[in-house]
């Protein structure tokens, strides 16, 4: 899934992702591609829906955002599929996103750094190819050329 269209008129890059519960149940997610975020995180409703007990999490992290500092739970997400790649047992944050934010979560550096990325904001196209090997690199540059 190397080239993903997005609606540039929304002024954010929203893409589709799929998370799986321990029992395999999938959840359809709209997530923000946020190159300014260090960690990936999801809404409380999403994590609870996946069967994760957010309030029982023993691990928390001090999160510093552009506007505030807060402590949030860290939980393990059994499977997260982003741009066609599966991330297993991934530690993610439970983010207190306001309801008015049109996303189920945020993709941060921990996920995005596994990919070569190219964004054409004018056309609303994101090219994402996981690192690994000459062929993947060649495929990425071919997709970028098409997305220019």
């Amino acid at each position, binding site marked *: 899934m190397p080239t993903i269209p997005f609606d540039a008129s929304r*002024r*954010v890059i929203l893409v*589709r992702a799929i998370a799986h519960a321990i029992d395999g*149940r*999938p*959840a*359809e*997610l709209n997530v*923000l591609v*946020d190159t*300014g*975020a260090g960690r990936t995180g999801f*809404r*409380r*409703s*999403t*994590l*609870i*829906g*996946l*069967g994760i007990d957010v309030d029982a999490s023993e691990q928390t992290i001090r999160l510093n*955002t*552009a*506007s505030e500092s807060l402590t949030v739970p860290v939980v393990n997400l059994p499977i997260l599929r982003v741009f066609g790649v599966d991330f297993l047992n991934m530690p993610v944050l439970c983010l207190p*996103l*306001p*309801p*008015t*934010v*049109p996303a*189920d979560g*945020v993709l941060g550096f921990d996920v995005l750094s596994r990919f070569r990325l190219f964004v054409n904001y004018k056309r609303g196209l994101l090219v994402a190819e996981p690192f690994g090997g000459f062929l993947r690199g060649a495929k990425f540059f071919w997709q970028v050329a098409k997305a220019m």
Partner: protein
Amino acid sequence: MEQKGEPIEQILERYKGQNAFVVIEVLSVDPKTQKPLTGRVIAVTPDETEAGLAARKAKHFLIRWVGEVAEVIIV
């Protein structure tokens, strides 16, 4: 593919403006893109925890906010 439930866009349009989370069980997906096509409503609630707990009853789910949407986002 057998079409079950109601188109998801249609469901969201029906609840638009209610300032709530709509929890939908996905009943069919596009065979090529795997994107959800149809579903049924499990819950409509402004409470995130309630929405999450309701979603646990579904085999395949999505949760969408159907109220006001922020234009500018700082995370």
